[in-house]
């Protein structure tokens, strides 16, 4: 496995009145989409600011691409803040060029790249308009382009889909996936748990300034559903089905679906084995599917945040 693009080790940051980050460590693998989750005020923004070299940590280390993070690295980072804003009286094109040049692009490079993106998003006609003339969604698109224009190695999106209609949100999602395919690593901070399930490879859940849960999304979802299975049946099976599996399970529910099929959800006893379960079910019904259950990120989020509340 290659080295992680970003490694935050034991970072702490305190402000006058409170601790914003307490011994925080995360590792963002090269080329992954990394979800940064947590309730409001947990310390996500502080962590993002530290990664962006806006705030410096009191202790701990941030390693970017194999070396300690410096101001020069911010040219390889693109950040879309949750609170969007552009210079209202500046024209769209000039403004985009300004931000691109701040990230180290030459004017000519910036113009070429911008034209590509503006054509892709079919917004060439906005070039000479002032930002104040754009709608909120339009300005968001411009800001997205500004974020990704300099082809950063690391992209940080804070609630990227807020303010977009479903069509544009989908388009944005496609773009994010495309950027990942092109080699960018993406940190994705959001409260939208279904989008986490959909696009994130790994996550870290921050609560009360600490890292309370880290890892691969599927792994975590399974871990929170250990010994839980979902079995699809062609019918409800015979009367002996539920009694026959009772000894080997802690919990079982049968739900009848509208099309005549049913879904059996079971929580296997720690000492029982899966094969026995399948045999028992197979004897009394027709199995259509057999799956490990996966907890929703939503449940995990609520579960973990509540159990780690101080």
């Amino acid at each position, binding site marked *: 496995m290659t080295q992680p693009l970003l490694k935050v080790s034991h970072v702490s940051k305190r*402000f*006058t009145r409170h601790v914003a980050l307490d011994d925080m460590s995360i590792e963002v693998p090269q080329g992954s989409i990394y979800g940064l989750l947590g309730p409001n005020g947990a310390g996500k923004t502080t962590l993002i*600011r530290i990664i*962006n070299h*806006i705030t*410096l940590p*009191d202790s701990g280390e941030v390693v970017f691409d194999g070396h300690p993070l410096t*101001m020069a690295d*911010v*040219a390889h*980072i693109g*950040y879309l*803040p949750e*609170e*969007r*804003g*552009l*210079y*209202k*009286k*500046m024209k769209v094109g000039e403004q985009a060029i*300004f*931000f691109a*040049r*701040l*990230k180290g692009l030459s004017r000519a490079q910036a113009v070429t790249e911008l034209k590509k993106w503006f054509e892709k998003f079919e917004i060439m006609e906005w070039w000479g308009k002032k930002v104040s003339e754009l709608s909120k969604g339009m300005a968001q698109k411009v*800001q997205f382009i*500004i974020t990704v224009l300099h082809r950063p190695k690391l992209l940080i999106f804070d609630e990227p889909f807020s303010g977009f209609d479903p069509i544009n949100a989908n388009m944005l999602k496609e773009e994010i996936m495309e950027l990942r395919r092109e080699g960018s690593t993406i940190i994705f901070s959001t409260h939208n748990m279904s989008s986490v399930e959909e696009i994130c490879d790994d996550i870290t859940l921050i609560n009360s300034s600490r890292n309370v849960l880290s890892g691969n999304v599927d792994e975590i979802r399974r871990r929170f559903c250990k010994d839980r299975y979902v079995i699809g049946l062609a019918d409800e099976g015979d009367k002996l089905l539920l009694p026959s599996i009772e000894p080997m399970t802690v919990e079982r529910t049968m739900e009848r679906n509208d099309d005549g099929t049913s879904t059996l959800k079971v929580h296997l006893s720690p000492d029982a084995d899966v094969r026995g379960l399948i045999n028992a079910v197979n004897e009394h019904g027709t199995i259509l599917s057999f799956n490990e259950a996966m907890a929703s990120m939503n449940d995990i989020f609520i579960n973990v945040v509540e159990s780690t509340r101080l």
Partner: protein
Amino acid sequence: MNQISLIIQREFIERVSKKSFIIVTILMPLLMLLLSVLPALMMQFSSSDGRNIVVVDETGVIAPDLHDTEDVTFSRSAQVLDSALTMKDVAGILYIPSTAVENTSGIAYYSNGPVSMNVEGELQAQLNDIIESRRIERSNIENLRQVMDDIHSDVQLLTFRNDTDELSQESSALSFVLGIGLALVLYMFLLLYGQMVMSSIIEEKNNRVLELVVTSVKPVHLMLGKIFGIASVAVVQILIWMALLCCISAFVIPATLPTEMMSEVSAVQAGTFDAATSQYDADFVNTVATLGSVGYIFNMLFVMLLFLVAGFLFYAAIFAAIGSAVENVQDASQLSFVAMVPIILGLVLSFSAVQDPQSGLAVACSYIPLTSPMVMMARLPFGIAAWEVILSLVILVASFLFTAWLAGKIYRVGIFMYGKKPTLKDLWHWSRQA
């Protein structure tokens, strides 16, 4: 730093290309010119309706010598005062009692409507002259008029500087006016442009564009870029005004004055002017000569420009720190007092500095960076030694480095603070955060 220069560029272009900037830059000098010409114009218009004054003269020896002027015309009346007072279609009634030559206290003017200072002054001057003549005649002393004329003295003081190399003629009245003028310009620029820095930072913070900018630029660099960007706008504006002013002083003044006066003006400039033989007021000729000499104006404006930039930088840093701490202009008003009070104080002190430019207070305040931009300007036209100017400037620049350092610390923390109206104490705490 490449990024700072980008910030400066953006700030500069955005402001200079604003319509309001262009309009103010061009209209302001025209407005000033108009304001200086306006009193003369108004005099011309107002004098066209010569005021008719009815004179009731009980002495009979004064009224014949009253002569009409642009402001007033006189008509004698044989009526007694009471019946004359019923006339409402004249400007007013001048009453001269029979004892007026001996005792002037009874003389009165009854006006229909408000009395202008011109008319009052004119009446008093004429009456004084006439009564004086009558008294001389009555004294029966031979040649008294001649004697008195010989005795009469009218000193036109010419002031020279003895402590500097050049022995230039100076007019303290001109220095006075110039001092106040320069101090006012500094005051205006510091206040307007300083607040511009503040409101611009508040705006950036408010619409959150700041969050985006600081991902590429260090907050301190952003702050400095903004300050220098706005400073360059101020410099461009003042340079344009200076250029216009120099044009006026070099071409317009010589062209509009009578040629005899111009020859005397050149005499002053050449150092051969002799007040005794001059047909004009010496102070006035001096003033014109000074204003008309491009070198003098240029020197003065150059020093002003230096103080304007240094003073602006010093105050802009303070305004920037305040702007970073608040979310809207209303919240800023309390804090911005901290910066505005010393600027206003500086102007007030300038008024006393032009009265006595060498007083201890004036000298001290022209070194203290909070007031030095204004007070030094007030002292400057009186001829200040170069080392004094340089020392004051050095102190000011050094103080800017200090305020910029402190403001940078506050700014770094302040721009991310939302939701709470900060106090001076908060700002102090922020400046001490690592």
